[in-house]
């Protein structure tokens, strides 16, 4: 087996608040294999974004406190000095965010914003950086790239801006791309274009991707493996097929069952999950999903279940055996 390119162990992120320490990510561990797409799925407050910001030391500390280990090609990202992490960030690990309007500088041309990192990280001179910028815009499917390179972000549509973000992401040939809700703000037809583009880039450049999203439809289409987060902890992790098919954790099961199924006969009511996601400052003791879980027993609210093997390369954090639960 190949070495994982990223290996996260026991990542814990907490924030000091008026109401005490809020644990937003609670002992997260996962690996990303070379060339694979790992999807991290969760709702707001599940810790999916914070955990990846923490990896790149993008959280202000304090108020955040980050513990654990994240080995990227063997080196611990969390232990790196400022200049070390800066040489990794945007260079070997790139990140693209949800909102392309707020992540681009409105008073600089798109070309300027692409050229800067090329000069800084790759040591290119102005002319070759500009040529590479045009190539990149072309690569992500922006028509007449040579002219558009001098346009400002507001001159691009939302989908085109997200393409610019991707171009910036892949500019320095990263090994790992972290996409945080990168297509959430886009229309579905534009999303389909972007997903297609990323898939193509991935097979051409051999990128590994961490795709952070709440959209279980997108995940089904692009992921090799899936980590389901809830309340800052992994509920279930498996390859995409067994995850959707077996749905071993009650949360995964409930979430998938709550989605409208196109083509279902007369609209029976959706199977909504009662209650609300937990508030990180008042995390329930025990399993974070217990207060909303249809199968919860007394022990669930007392002790947090360990993430354990339940089938081949299939991890589940539940006190109960799924075979018995859903029998």
């Amino acid at each position, binding site marked *: 087996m190949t070495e994982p390119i990223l290996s996260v162990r026991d990542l814990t992120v907490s924030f000091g608040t008026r109401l005490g320490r809020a644990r937003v990510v609670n002992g997260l561990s996962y690996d990303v294999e070379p060339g694979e797409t790992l999807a991290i799925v969760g709702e707001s407050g599940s810790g999916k974004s914070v955990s990846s910001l923490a990896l790149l030391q993008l959280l202000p500390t304090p108020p955040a406190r980050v513990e654990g280990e994240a080995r990227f090609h063997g080196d611990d990202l969390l232990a790196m000095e400022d200049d070390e992490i800066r040489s990794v960030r945007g260079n070997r690990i790139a990140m693209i965010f949800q909102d392309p309007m707020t992540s681009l500088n409105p008073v600089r041309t798109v070309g300027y914003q692409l050229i800067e990192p090329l000069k800084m990280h790759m040591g290119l001179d102005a002319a070759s950086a500009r040529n590479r910028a045009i190539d990149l815009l072309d690569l992500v499917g922006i028509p007449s790239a040579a002219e558009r390179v001098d346009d400002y972000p507001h001159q691009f549509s939302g989908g085109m801006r997200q393409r610019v973000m991707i171009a910036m992401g892949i500019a320095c040939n990263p090994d790992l791309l972290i996409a945080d809700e990168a297509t959430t703000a886009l229309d579905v037809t534009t999303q389909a274009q972007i997903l297609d583009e990323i898939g193509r880039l991935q097979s051409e450049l051999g990128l590994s991707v961490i795709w952070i999203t709440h959209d279980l439809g997108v995940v089904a289409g692009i992921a090799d493996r899936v980590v389901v987060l809830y309340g800052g902890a992994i509920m279930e992790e498996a390859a995409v097929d067994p995850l959707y098919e077996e749905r071993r954790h009650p949360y995964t099961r409930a979430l998938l069952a709550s989605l409208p199924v196109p083509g279902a006969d007369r609209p029976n009511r959706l199977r909504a999950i009662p209650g*609300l996601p937990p508030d990180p400052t008042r995390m329930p003791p025990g399993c974070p999903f217990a207060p909303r879980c249809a199968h919860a027993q007394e022990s669930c609210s007392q002790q947090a279940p360990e993430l354990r093997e339940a089938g081949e390369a299939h991890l589940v954090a539940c006190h109960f055996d799924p075979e018995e639960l859903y029998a």
Partner: protein
Amino acid sequence: MPEDQALLEVDALEVHFPVYSRGVLRRQIATVQAVDGVTLEIRRGETLGLVGESGCGKTTTGMAILRLVQPTGGAVVFDSVDVGALDKGQMRRLRRRMAMIFQDPYASLDPRMTIGDIVAEPLRIHGLHEGKEARTRRVADLLDMVGLNPDYRDRFPHEFSGGQRQRVGIARALATEPDFIVCDEPIAALDVSIQAQVMNLLEDLQDELGLTYLFIAHDLSAVQHLADRIAVMYLGRIVEVVDRDQAVAGFTHPYSESLLSAVPVPDPKIERHRERILLEGDVPSPLNPPSGCHFRTRCRYAFDQCATDDPELRELDDGRLVACHLYA
């Protein structure tokens, strides 16, 4: 009352926004054709889903129906009354029977008002349930109806989660006992596990109160679940209207087809084998829409006639309405 009677008829509705030049003269230099001849019918008690991508004019259509923006052409007939011919006072009385639920439960509630006051505001404006006691009782009923504890009435919006705030917005919409509610992306801003709760609530309220909905959304799977009929909009025009059962079998208009094919399905097996119809480029600007069929610049079937003639919305043999020269 006959079942299939239209509660709302929208005929060739047009909302064009003028664009002015800078400077003192402020000449009109262009027109944004946000809604460009929309014809729709919504039957009593049904949910009509209106889907389309951002900028296609679906929200403006909803607002023009309620006359929250002034249509520049066409007619809206609500329960046999021509809404465009009403004066201010008459419109205000009619508006009691229409309401709107907004997308963003963070922006659509006044942060300085308690949720009790927010829900009571339409009652105050329309002079309903006069008297402190009657009004308090009505507010309590409304909060109860949407699944909120009436004891929360003195709390402020920031004390609630997104899903709960959306319930407050729904209670406010129900306050004047409307017949018709425009739901503008009511679940788009909510967490996945909360979306189903709100969709169920909207369905229950419809059953209980006999409401008629115009459900505006970009999320086709939500619309397919809730709506009895689905209208697909592109660049200011309706391109297709189908019954939900027909939508299950698929759409006919080339744009609806590609829209449907782009919706991700939460099943990896289906995703792997499905053919996506990827559209080229971006939606053209409504400032200067293409001649003829607005979709022709991105349509894989476009031929000469598409550039010259506007396709009309025509009824096909199976009853669906399609605006495409392929089916003329």
